[in-house]
């Protein structure tokens, strides 16, 4: 019964994470993953980026992005394994691995963002 009550909350996190990642991940991944490494544009200087990431608003936004995106992954990946591989008997373990991973990742994200000078 406990699982039934937590399911709407998990779906809400999944949904919020879906919106956050749809809005923010493509541009960030395009710039830091493709454009800067391939030298198409100059990456921001370390001093400037440190100030941008260190700003309280950016910190909160990045933390929300990391946390919600991880819960989005956890929920979607859990059901992908469930639908795609038909491993119903491993259900509990998969759920633990997915949501547990999202919690560990969120705590790590909070810690790393806290460490930014």
């Amino acid at each position, binding site marked *: 019964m406990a699982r039934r009550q937590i399911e709407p909350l998990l779906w809400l996190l999944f949904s919020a994470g879906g919106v956050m990642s749809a*809005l*923010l991940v493509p541009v960030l*991944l*395009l710039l830091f993953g493709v454009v800067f490494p391939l030298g198409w544009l100059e990456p921001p200087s*370390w001093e400037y980026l440190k100030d941008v990431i260190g700003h309280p608003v950016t910190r909160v936004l990045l933390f929300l992005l990391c946390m919600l995106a991880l819960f989005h*992954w956890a929920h979607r990946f859990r059901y*992908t394994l469930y639908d795609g591989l038909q491993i119903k008997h491993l259900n509990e373990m998969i759920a633990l691995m997915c949501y547990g991973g999202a919690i560990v990742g969120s705590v790590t994200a909070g810690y790393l963002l806290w460490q930014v000078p």
Partner: protein
Amino acid sequence: MAATHEKPSYTEFHPRWYRPRVSTYWWLQRSAYVLFILRELSSVCIAWFVIFLLMLIHAVSQDRAAYDEFLEWAAHPIVVTVNVISLLMVVFHAATWFNLAPQAMVVRMKGKRVPGIYIAGANYAAWLVVSALVAWLLLR
């Protein structure tokens, strides 16, 4: 009445529902199923992006040398390949997500339902504005 809440006991005559076995590779049978699984797997690329982003944040919070090292690592062909694939998957996620938005949000104005195309359009516009803001912040 209480009996209906109990588990039905097994009888020899209890019907066994016909359940054909579904192949593990059922999603390869139609392109729509393949696209569905690809959309679901885009979440793995999003998780990878979070790891990538946290590595960047960690490098920036240390010193200039660590940041340069991160940029060098990010330029490695394998990392670039992974990121290009992830980018395509995440764009696919964003497009499918915004296309579904009209079904998830029902907006009414003056008692009339706002047509889905406006809601999807508003989502795409927000995507454009947010992307432009982030790019402006990082490139100025």
